[in-house]
């Protein structure tokens, strides 16, 4: 392939259409809603890579990124370009040393807010200042701290593929700020363990806290606790009494879908509809039906048959 030929090939490059790729939540304007996502993207934009930034953004919005995997220090992604085989993108960030982490955690313990917000899945507003105060930085301060690679033929780095992944990472941080720390070398659990001098407690896993609700799988039933049936007829046929007001107040909440709201955006949402909007109307509909069931009014009418 001649040099010119290469450009002939490259210039009109239209990426192959992808179905079901990771689509950016933002339809226009800036990426990421949280300040830290914005801050992350600002780092990219400060590198002045020109039109590749623009293309990267449209890649991200069109769903060209097929997958992203984040691990300590690195994010690996597959991006569909114009060639049949997707490109492999790797973004590596310099991890902090153990000593640096120690300093940092001490500084973070001065206000409950840091630990509380992080535990609740949010990035404290002024956490960057804490980093600065101990002479560190959360976001890559310079290109040198950031090592990016892409298997595409474009020589310039960062290329639009890297930019697309970068944008989507920003949105991903919206949801889970701990990923930023992971890229800096500490997993969520490691960080949580140290924040506020918390010692790890054995039974914190949510799955363990919930009761085993299944019996179909025999291996799990064997492990589950058992409760033998009583053989006395007096106990066998009847249960204990319940208070009259067992269920308390039952009202349709004025604000719909409070629980999923509290969970925030779904990670790497690729659905055509926006999840929060779908859930809001859906919860409202379900709520009405729930109330009817509670009142014992969901009886089949003859017309239903």
């Amino acid at each position, binding site marked *: 392939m001649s040099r010119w030929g290469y450009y002939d090939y490259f210039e009109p490059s239209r990426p192959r259409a992808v179905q079901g790729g990771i689509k950016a939540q933002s339809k226009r304007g800036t990426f990421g809603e949280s300040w830290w996502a914005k801050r992350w993207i600002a780092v990219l934009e400060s590198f002045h890579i020109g039109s590749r930034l623009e293309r990267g953004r449209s890649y991200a919005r069109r769903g060209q990124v097929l997958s992203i995997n984040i691990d300590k220090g690195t994010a690996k992604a597959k991006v569909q370009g114009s060639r049949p085989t997707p490109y492999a993108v790797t973004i590596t960030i310099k991890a902090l040393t153990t000593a640096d982490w120690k300093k940092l955690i001490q500084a973070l313990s001065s206000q409950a807010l840091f*630990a509380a917000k992080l535990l609740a899945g949010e990035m404290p507003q002024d956490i960057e200042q804490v980093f600065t105060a101990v002479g560190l930085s959360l976001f890559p301060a310079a290109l040198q701290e950031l090592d990016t690679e892409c298997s595409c033929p474009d020589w310039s780095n960062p290329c639009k593929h890297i930019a697309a992944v970068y944008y989507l990472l920003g949105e991903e941080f919206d949801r889970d700020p701990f990923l930023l720390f992971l890229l800096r070398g500490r997993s969520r659990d490691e960080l949580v363990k140290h924040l506020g001098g918390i010692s790890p407690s054995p039974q914190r896993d949510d799955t363990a806290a919930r009761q*085993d609700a*299944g019996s179909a799988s025999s291996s799990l039933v064997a492990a589950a606790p058992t409760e033998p049936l009583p053989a006395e007829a007096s106990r066998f*046929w009847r249960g204990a009494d319940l208070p009259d007001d067992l269920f308390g107040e039952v009202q349709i909440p004025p604000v719909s879908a409070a629980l999923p709201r509290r969970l925030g955006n779904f990670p790497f949402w690729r*659905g055509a509809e926006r999840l929060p909007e779908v859930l809001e109307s859906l919860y409202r509909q379900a709520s009405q039906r729930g109330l009817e*069931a509670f009142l*014992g009014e969901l009886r089949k009418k003859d017309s239903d048959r």
Partner: protein
Amino acid sequence: MIVLHAFHTDGQLLLWGEAPTPSSPDSSTWRRQKRRGNAAAFFPYGADAIALSAALVHTAGGVVAHADGQETRFVWLPTVAGQPLASSPLIAEPPESDAHATLAPWRVTTLWLAPPEAVSLLCSCVNSETLAPGVIIGKDLAFWAMAMRFAGALVARQQFLPTVRHAGESRAGSLTKREKHGRYRTCWEPVFLGTDATRLAQLAKAMPPVCRALTREVIAPPATPALTVLTMFLNATVDYLVRSSLVGNATGVFSRASTKRQVRTRPQSFASIHDHWLYTLRAAEEEMVGDASSLAQFAEQVREWQRPITASTATPFRLCFRLEEPVADDMEIARSGRSANTAWYVRYLLQAADDPSLLVPAADAWTANGRTAAIFTKKGFNPREYLLTSLGQAAGISPRVEDSLRKSTPSGYTLDASGAHEFLTEQAWLLEQAGFGVLLPAWWTGKGTKLRLTARATVRSPKMQGGSGLSLDQIVRFNWEVALGDETLSLPELQTLARLKAPLVKVRGQWVQLNAEEIQAALDFWKRKTADEMTVRAMVRMALGAGTAPGGMPFAGVTATGWIADLLAQLDGQAAFEELPQPAAFQGTLRPYQVRGYSWLAFLRHWGLGACLADDMGLGKTPQTLALIQRDWQTNDKRPVLLICPTSVVGNWQKEAARFTPDLPVMVHHGLTRTKGAAFKREASKQAIVLSSYALLHRDFEFLTDIPWAGVILDEAQNIKNPETKQARAARSLTADYHIALTGTPVENNVGDLWSILEFLNPSFLGTQAEFKRTFFVPIQANHDPEATERLKRLTGPFILRRLKTDKTIISDLPEKMEMKVYCTLTKEQASLYAAVVEEATAALESAEGIQRKGVILATLSKLKQVCNHPAQFLGDNSAISGRSGKLARLTEMLEEALSTGDRALVFSQFAEMGEILKRHLQGTFGREVMFLHGAVPKKQRDRLVERFQTDEDGPRIFVLSLKAGGTGLNLTAANHVFHFDRWWNPAVENQATDRAFRIGQHKNVQVHKFLCVGTLEEKIDEMIARKQEVAAKVVGTGEGWLTELSTEELKELFALRQEVVGE
């Protein structure tokens, strides 16, 4: 009779049942097969599929079990000596002791119910004990109905999340290798935060063990914990409720076939797994089939996404916010201009899940040591981490919480009055929804402060105009004024409040919520000073709490002067209404409380308001009503009253009218020969009372509505409690000067039933049915809103008079023993049987002599009595029971009323066969055990029956006794009703039987009801005995022998059926 049971497995309800006898021949073939095979025999009391399906037909709207839904399962039951122990004595007598019971498997037929059918069935089980006469709701089925309501409550309060699970995956399972291959299903799962977790545990603890006693194979008795079984049920039900709200369930999409298998082709392939997920969340089918590893990854993502909420369930403590108020008085401060400490405080606390009164301030929890630390470590709880996590979550809801976290160990935050108001009205709610505990001051009611600015209307009564009586249709003018509690506010006071510009102020030591719009509206009243207009009827309605004030201000009532004030005070029960002397033409004497009841009826009638007389059974609703009719008839152009009652009491009304108001012409509009159309109109206009039944109210409505009735009276008015029924619609459409409803069941306790009756009495008083549902039914039933309950009581109270026989302060003049005759109506079948027996006897008497003649007479007597009791007794053919005997219908109605007020009753019959029929019928109807004592019961068992009746709180409340076996010797003072279903012509024998209840040790009034059929020999013998009391005492003492001394002519007359009321 059948007792229905249910088991829940694989997201479906399995229905099975118990019936007293082995039901069908095919079950015996089963049994033979089983005897040859392995250990489990067919459950001897198991109901077969036909019986189960038949039972379901009775549920509201009819539930149809799935066509191929029949399956055999094993139910593990307590078993003694190879015999399974039934759930209730209705099925089989319990053994002497179940001490040596062991669990053994029994084969049982089950029916699958698809979720829509299951929910419909469970809805029918809410608040009842039977689905239909003879279809009894087992304790387990009732439990599932309760659990279904819990699922409904969770969905209503939106405590659920969408998720995806590996098909067959347990919730405890983490990502395992198996998950990589296999299918997933999306589901809507309940979330149990805070109190819901407590409710879940409470409910699991209350689960009858039979709920989890079924297995597919005979291996070992099931031991799945109740909590697991319950959670599976709730998961399935919540999922169904949410899904069906999105797709509707009318088209049968939730049948078992479509939920369990992949039968519908997908409309499209999906662009992403997220589209796929959303699609299946909104569809009836729940499976997601696709690339196993990406599905597994997706499942993990969903789990991760939900972590903040799932992690907060099931912790031993929860974060709790307590709003604490300052102490200074704002009104004082505003007047004096001083400033004071007006800071409010929201304190963070940890609240123990199992003991909500255990509250540890966060301040102590941060640095937990000593005893506080011990509380936490005992529960394996890390307070620091928990506080940090929860506060972080709360910070997302409340910026003030976020600000407070600037400290290393925050214990709360301060806020001003408007901040406190915002906390009360918005944040408290949000925090609670998100699963945090919230403790608010007692003066906050959830909607606002107890003390509020209120508007009241003031009205001055117009003068009476030249003799024309006062009427509720008069138009009156009224003004508005503004009050705080009981005190009317002056303009300067109002202006002071307006100047405070605070949403929450303390006035005279009490917190008051101020709404700027309300204050503006109040100031506007002041400026306007103009009057509004409405009718007195609307004013009455408003005064009873159904009003709204302009500006959205809460309405606090009407201040009136003159006759309107008197009227309002009388309605409210604050002033007495005039006690009237009983009408001169009224025969007999009303007791003092009956005079009050009659006067009350007259008072409301005077104002054209409807009245519901709901006195306890036996207090004499009939004479009170007849007294009113008598009085009204004399003063009101002698126009007729339409009195609608159940067929079974038509005869009784006729008798009572003849006794108390003999000069009132009464017409019975009943039977095939009844007059219709113009003839009816002509005939009816000459009457004081036209008696008819509920069935005809609808059928003959066309010409019934044509008469200008003075009044319409409904006896047993609970018959119209369902507003949709034809008879209820017809009753509401009849116009008359006054409306009265009579009932002995406590209608006021059932909010759902009130509307229909009140709408009949006072149209539009409670608003339309939809308005009523919105403003009263849902708030009271679902929200337990005490304010709505109170409002409803105020609005309906003036029109319902209910006096209890136990209330000695009101009814001091009730005799300890009251004897009443209950006149019943023969059914058509009874009448024709009766006629046949008489015809046969007449022929036989012509030819018989001496001993033979005596034999004929006694045999005829016995036959006629049997016919009066029940055709099935006379025919001795074990035929159907329901709907064939007027006496039985009346007895059932009366017992239902007695049971509804917690009474106990003895029912005597001289025929053991009748006793058996009564026991069977009453057990089936009420779904409760009915005891039966007859001559063949051995002494030991008899003693046990008596003891259970006397001492067992939850024991049987109806005791049927044969006159011979139970008429003497026993002590049955637990009963306060004695029914003599048939008569023994010896009053002494009857009295002796009555004295089983009416004797030393009886603390209640005893009501004795003697049943007799109108127009039959029962009535005639009764008349003879009454006429010759003293003779009777002598001759009757020898039993029925004296009757054989009568001449043939006398006998013929005695036997002849007088053409009277015959039911349909």
